[in-house]
């Protein structure tokens, strides 16, 4: 039996083919207007997980970049703080050298103490620097300044932060790192999936030596011994008063004693920290560059997987359009054929 084509069949063919062409045309139009070839997982199941992974990685890397940037700004601020601290300490050492000269009278020395104490106060306020509301040198403890001359409330056994002599003058002020819970910790930021960079250092390691040295010097210039006797140790609040002129030479010796503390603070604490900050800043810049180029590469890769090749899509679209027109023409002519026209 030969194959028969009924009228309904040819009409149905026609309708089915138009529908198919139109669906294809619509899909092609959507791709062109959105620029996206894979918009739902069903478009390309094998690529779906990859695209999800790319999307997430981009979000994660962008977050790293934001955090690295905030880390960089904190470290740059620390660089400035440390540079200022360095010049304060250099000035302190200079004053100590001048004061050790025995051409000065003990009264003149006492005058110099004013500047020394100012330098100390400046160094204290550098140690209490805040970045975005957080004390940089306070570890996790961000509710009170790390360097304080008032005892922490409610901490049992904490001695009053004062020196025993020179009441009412800067000599009696004793600034030490408050040592509350969390102050020994440092803050890290995660800069990649596998790496984190420390962005803070507990303040006692950076400033305590310098503050103590300036405090000792100031007190010596003001006519007080400070205990413990070792200039490397943090003052414990005790001391003795000098009597002049009997103790003049001893005062000179006490001033000279502070020189070592200045050197240690400068070369070890401040310069050391400055170098460390520089190294960590470099690390952050590197991490930022890596994250940035990763984002760029992953976006490219995602685009390769997910986006439409516009030239191909446009060519496809016009192809489908032409074939739909041809189909409509052929279909209308085909369906107008009828034996009735010839009887």
């Amino acid at each position, binding site marked *: 039996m030969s194959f028969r084509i009924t009228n309904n*069949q040819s009409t149905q063919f026609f309708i089915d083919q138009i529908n198919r062409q139109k669906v294809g045309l619509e899909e092609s139009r959507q791709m062109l207007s959105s620029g996206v070839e894979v918009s739902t997982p069903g478009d390309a199941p094998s690529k779906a997980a990859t695209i999800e992974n790319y999307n997430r990685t981009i979000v994660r890397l962008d977050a790293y970049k934001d955090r690295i940037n905030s880390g960089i700004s904190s470290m740059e601020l620390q660089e400035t703080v440390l540079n200022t601290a360095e010049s304060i300490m250099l000035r302190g050492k200079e004053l100590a050298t001048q004061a050790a000269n025995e051409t000065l009278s003990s009264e003149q020395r006492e005058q110099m103490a004013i500047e020394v104490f100012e330098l100390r106060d400046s160094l204290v306020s550098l140690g209490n620097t805040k970045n975005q509301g957080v004390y940089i040198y306070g570890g996790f403890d961000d509710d009170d300044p790390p360097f304080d001359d008032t005892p922490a409330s409610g901490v049992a056994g904490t001695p009053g932060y004062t020196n025993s002599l020179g009441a009412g003058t800067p000599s009696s002020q004793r600034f030490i790192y408050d040592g509350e819970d*969390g102050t020994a910790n440092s803050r890290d930021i995660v800069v990649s999936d596998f790496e984190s960079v420390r962005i803070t250092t507990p303040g006692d390691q950076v400033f305590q030596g310098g503050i103590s040295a300036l405090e000792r010097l100031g007190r010596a210039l003001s006519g007080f011994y400070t205990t413990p006797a070792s200039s490397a140790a943090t003052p414990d609040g005790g001391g003795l008063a000098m009597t002049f002129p009997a103790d003049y030479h001893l005062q000179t010796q006490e001033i000279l004693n502070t020189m070592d503390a200045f050197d240690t603070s400068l070369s070890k604490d401040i310069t050391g920290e400055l170098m460390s900050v520089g190294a960590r800043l470099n690390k952050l810049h590197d991490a930022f560059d890596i994250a940035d180029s990763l984002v760029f590469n992953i976006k490219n890769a995602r685009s390769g997987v997910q986006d439409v090749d516009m030239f191909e899509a446009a060519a496809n679209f016009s192809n489908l359009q032409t074939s739909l027109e041809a189909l409509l023409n052929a279909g209308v002519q085909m369906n107008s054929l009828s034996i009735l026209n010839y009887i």
Partner: protein
Amino acid sequence: MGSGVSSLLDISKRSLFNQSQAIRVIGNNIANVNTEGYSRRKVDIKSSDSFDTGEGTSFGTGADIDSVYRTVDKFINLAYQGRIGDRARSEARDEFLARLEPMFALDGSTKTISSELSGFFSAIEDLAQNPSDVSLRRNVLDQGQNLATTINRVYSQVSQLQREADDRINYLVEEVNRIGGQIANLNSQISGKEDGSQELLTARDQREQLVRDLSEIMSVTTVENSDGSTLVTIGNGFALVSGIHSNALETSKSPSFAPVGGYPKGLDGDALSFIVHDFDTGAGTSHADFTGTIAAGGGELGGLLSLRGVQSATDTTAFDAVGDFVTAASMVEAIAEDLLTRFNLSYLGPDENGGTAFHNPSSGDLAGSTPASPYSLFNFTGAADLDADGRPDDLAGLRTALTIPSFAEIIQFGVTSEQQLAAALDLDPAAGSLSFTTGDSRNLDNLAALRQQKVAYSVGNFNQTSSLEEVYDTLTSTVGSLRATSKNQFALDKDRETMAKELYSSTSGVSLDEEFANLITFQKAYEASARLVRVGDEMLTEVIGLLG
């Protein structure tokens, strides 16, 4: 010779009748050109018995209509019926999966579980930089709530689709019974009365069309009995229609074969329907189960059941059923359960008392308080520490104890105020004494680190060892490949159905061109027969004239 003329008249009279009957059949074909299920009729005209003179000569006596028959091919019909079932199955699957797919958009057009997970972790890591910042804390709260609501939304959309499929299954079973009854009714008209009359031809057409309608709903096997009735059976030999009887199917949510305690509920907490047949055991009504058989077959019911899921007697939760919606829901549930257990436990911090039976939290909020419950970061209504060990419970046990169908549906973010978020860990090394500082973010760091950790997930039939986000990747690929497959399968099955339909139409359909060509043939034959009558008439007149 006289007998010759009258026989000529007889031949032409019958020919006139035959041709006009044939034209009538053509008319009927043309009238039914658009009737669904109508099979083209053909007239079978046969030469009449010849007249033997007894002298070695025989004369023809014209022609008679032997029969009017339907042009059908049983095998083509069967193939068409099968293709209709395949197409209906993949069409139903594709329609439902197309509605599931947009929840997993890849182009950022919808908030997905993945984008919310990223948002939540980013918020936590941002806060870790400055844990006392209230606006960053607010951000964690917002992102946590978004994550929980997105999980709720995706899960409940999947469970709604399952419920819709179940409702549709109930309706379709009614349809099956209606069609079964009609087929039985037509069987009673046809059986034993096969006489080729137009009425029975129409009844057969209608019956074939009903079988096709039935195949669209579920796979059936049909056999024609010797008395002309059709036996309709499903998969395992159950007779849906036998002779003039039809056996009804029913849906039951608590069938007699259910295990003790009943089947687990569906994803939304309501029972799922089984397709059963009631039979009387003498001691009451019992059920025969056809759900699995129908699910494996074609038709819309097969498609819907394969998505909705089919339960077995060993199932203990909604996630044990075998079906595509259940698989997708299991993965969403795995994500929710992970947040409720592993994340909650990590949020409490290490045990303050060094791993004692009771887990004492070592994490603290801005007020220095530890989390109050093992479900502090993520929780749900009715959350309880049943074994009172201070840790989030084994959720499988909790699900049974609290008769909770799913945690994904009810998970919520447990932290309600900025201050309450426990970012700090204990700084005091001594067990039993706690010390927190507001600038400490170590608890958040630990939480953020969990996202990279690979753990074993197991919900229902879903088992995977991976990170949390990779569970979502699996979910996306699963939904994607289900949809892509259903789309391709539907296109393929539709093409195959079209081909089968073409073959069927080619055999049984009406072609107007052909009918008109035939019309001319029979019209001419009618004219010729009429001319024969005139010739006979003239001959008879001539003979009668001789007598006068």
